[in-house]
């Protein structure tokens, strides 16, 4: 039997004005188990806390009920006071008689009566409380960043600068991501490579950062502070530590017709290649799908010309196992496939290109060395039509495209249109848009400069059809403001394709048990207050994997994610909320109902030995909760059909005791 002390707070006049505190403490004195009951002006004050300490000592209390303000206000205060008095901090219950009683009820008799009932419910619950101890787990002081684009690089640099080890896993042969393919960046027009490549080099040279390029995450186990990750380092058939990146092999390789993915297939590369001049790590990679030596054992040119002897045709995938304290997802985005948009003739005409292809066309390191030439005949285009929202802001009923706004297209189109007009003033540029959205610092000024100073013709309306006819592209569009149809003969059409999460994100989310929205963007723990944390403890989000983002936003979020990781890794031990689910193994029948509803993947199954009535020992599959991962929502407790699952601190019998006390 508990020995319970009740402390009723006046909160000055906040409670005492509408609740007869003396009557409440008198009434609660008669409750079973209550051995001491008093009231005091300010229970949260030092004097009030001393009163608790004294009462615990004098009356040998095992638990205390405080009738006061909301537990959201002072639960921690009173738990500390209980701990100081030698009690378990979880042997405290609070009856909220201020926010939910004295402040909302004007009638003293009614308020007092309700306060007594709330106090009774707290006493009834406390009778069933058990001392709880927060768990402690050590933290592995190493972070994993998945994705080596600007988001991943920035996060890794920030974590490394704080003195922690970071590994970057990048599936491509080089880090750099989408930003390395861009030409200029809005709204300042600095060149993407000029601001990105120094960061890539910095990452490579930072002694706290290890880059696993051409690698993918194979599996993830464990939990916050202690993730066990296996990384598959794909065979690149070149010894990374020996290759000097001289590029001789990429010149001598006889296989010349491999589509160059870095230039989006607009030119070709060799079977052994370095994606681009500033690649990090700058080492060659052999493409096994095209290499003659790997396909049929005939060739070996690259091995012969390599003076360093770095070519290794027998290299195999390597599995690296590593422990991490935190994981940052920075998998980024990709433009959607335009197969369903036949009306824009993307698949039938080489002169209908996406915005990313346009970036490569205008990039000095691109297939045309930066000259804006039509892909079909290499001529300079004199009339260019930019089409906005291709696959963005599509009605769900259309069955193609995305419902959301891709956010970056308005601005990069303004940039591309402006740069065309700047470099080739004889070119006529049209932009067809639904809305121009420019809600960033200096964004609207930038768009207005494109329209007003550079003479880019902005037309509100959508393009209905593009039909290639001879050398020109017939563009049919509507001008909504003038209320008429437009027919334009364009030389080049640029489609602002919607962006979607990288395809690697979905399987990764499953591995991490991190949740995603219907569009496969990672969900944040709270859309406003915890925007860089995933709901899964220890998993953080950086960049466009969480939603469409431009570079400034991505870098800001990358820094925020890094700060959260540093905060986690700076701790030696993690204390976990002890109010987590627990299994009664004797009751559990191993049905997996609880595992299916757990949003955190905190429940696994173990085979346990049970002594049977005939004294034999049988193995049974039972649920097991990882208290470091469980967040204590209680979804599993209701899903459990045998009643084996319960939630500490909010046990079924405790809540039922409260229900009974209230309904008495």
């Amino acid at each position: 039997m508990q020995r319970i002390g009740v402390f009723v707070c006046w909160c000055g006049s906040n409670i005492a004005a509408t609740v007869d505190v003396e009557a409440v403490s008198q009434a609660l004195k008669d409750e079973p188990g209550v051995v001491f009951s008093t009231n005091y002006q300010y229970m949260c004050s030092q004097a009030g806390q001393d009163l608790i300490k004294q009462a615990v000592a004098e009356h040998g209390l095992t638990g205390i009920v405080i009738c006061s303000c909301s537990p959201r206000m002072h639960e921690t205060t009173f738990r500390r006071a209980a701990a100081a008095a030698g009690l378990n901090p979880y042997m405290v219950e609070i009856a909220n008689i201020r926010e939910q009683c004295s402040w909302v009820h004007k009638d003293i008799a009614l308020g007092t009566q309700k306060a007594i009932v709330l106090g009774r419910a707290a006493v009834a619950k406390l009778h069933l409380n058990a001392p709880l101890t927060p768990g402690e787990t050590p933290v592995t002081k190493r972070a994993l960043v998945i994705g080596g684009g600007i988001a991943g690089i920035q996060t890794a640099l920030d974590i490394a600068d704080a003195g922690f080890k970071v590994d970057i896993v990048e599936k491509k042969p080089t880090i750099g991501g989408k930003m390395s393919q861009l030409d200029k960046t809005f709204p300042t027009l600095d060149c993407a490579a000029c601001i990105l490549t120094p960061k890539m080099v910095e990452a490579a040279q930072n002694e706290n950062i290890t880059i696993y390029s051409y690698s993918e995450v194979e599996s993830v186990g464990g939990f916050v502070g202690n993730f066990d990750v296996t990384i598959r380092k794909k065979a690149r058939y070149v010894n990374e530590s020996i290759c000097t990146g001289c590029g001789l092999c990429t010149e001598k390789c006889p296989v010349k017709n491999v589509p160059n993915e870095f230039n989006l297939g607009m030119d070709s590369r060799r079977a052994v290649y370095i994606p681009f001049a500033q690649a990090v790590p700058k080492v060659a990679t052999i493409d096994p799908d095209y290499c003659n030596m790997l396909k049929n054992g005939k060739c070996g040119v690259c091995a012969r010309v390599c003076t360093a002897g770095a070519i290794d045709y027998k290299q195999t995938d390597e599995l690296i196992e590593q422990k991490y304290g935190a994981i940052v997802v920075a998998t980024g985005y990709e433009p959607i496939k335009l197969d369903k948009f036949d009306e824009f003739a993307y698949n039938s005409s080489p002169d209908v290109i996406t915005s990313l292809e346009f970036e490569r066309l205008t990039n000095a390191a691109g297939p045309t060395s930066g000259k804006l030439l039509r892909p079909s005949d290499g001529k300079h285009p004199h009339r260019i039509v930019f089409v906005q929202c291709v696959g963005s802001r599509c009605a769900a009923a259309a069955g193609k495209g995305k419902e959301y706004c891709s956010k970056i297209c308005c601005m990069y189109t303004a940039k591309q249109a402006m740069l065309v007009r700047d470099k080739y003033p004889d070119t006529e540029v049209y932009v067809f848009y639904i809305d121009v959205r420019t809600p960033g610092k200096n964004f609207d000024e930038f768009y207005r400069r494109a329209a007003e100073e550079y003479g880019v013709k902005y037309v509100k309306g959508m393009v209905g059809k593009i039909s290639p006819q001879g050398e020109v592209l017939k563009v049919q569009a509507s001008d909504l403001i003038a209320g008429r149809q437009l027919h334009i003969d364009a030389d080049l059409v640029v489609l602002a394709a919607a962006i979607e999460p990288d395809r690697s994100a979905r399987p990764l989310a499953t591995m991490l048990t991190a949740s995603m929205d219907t569009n496969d963007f990672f969900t944040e723990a709270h859309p406003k207050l915890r925007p860089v944390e995933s709901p899964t403890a220890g998993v953080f989000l950086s960049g466009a994997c969480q939603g469409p983002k431009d570079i400034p936003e991505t870098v800001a979020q990358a820094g925020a994610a890094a700060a959260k990781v540093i905060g986690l890794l700076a701790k030696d031990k993690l204390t976990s909320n002890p109010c987590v689910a627990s299994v009664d193994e004797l009751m559990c029948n191993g049905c997996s109902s609880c595992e299916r509803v757990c949003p955190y993947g905190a429940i696994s199954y173990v085979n346990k030995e049970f002594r049977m009535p005939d004294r034999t020992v049988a193995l049974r599959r039972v649920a097991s909760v990882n208290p470091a991962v469980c967040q204590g929502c209680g979804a599993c407790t209701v899903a459990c059909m045998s009643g084996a699952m319960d939630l500490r601190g909010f046990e079924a019998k405790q809540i039922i005791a409260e229900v009974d006390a209230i309904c008495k």
Partner: protein
Amino acid sequence: MQMTDYKPKIVAFCCNWCSYAGADLAGNNRLSYPAEVKIIRVPCSCRVNPTFILRAFQRGADGVIICGCHPGDCHYTSGNYFARRRMALLFSMLDYLGIERERTRVEWVSAAEGAKFAATMNDFVSTVAALGENRRLEDLRCKK
């Protein structure tokens, strides 16, 4: 029993992150609602076992309301969806048992919606009060 004296017993389950905070906000703003409403704090609306509601009716509650975060805003991402589905099933069973639909309710109240909390409780209490005492599930042996 005279209807003028009749005060319904209302049990409100509020999730810790949204609705309980919404109730606190109603208090901060001194938005009054009937004293018949007694709140039980749960971590998430998905912690509310349908048996808790049956228990409340058995012990003489006249109405039970479950408040959680708005869909999509759950602190635990999906808890309120579980609650919504479970309660839909429970309520149709209660309907079958002859418990009026109006005696049970699921409401989404965010931490910023103190006014909505008070308005919801005012409305719920007057609805339940109009129905009168709930006797169908009440276990009279529990009454002293």
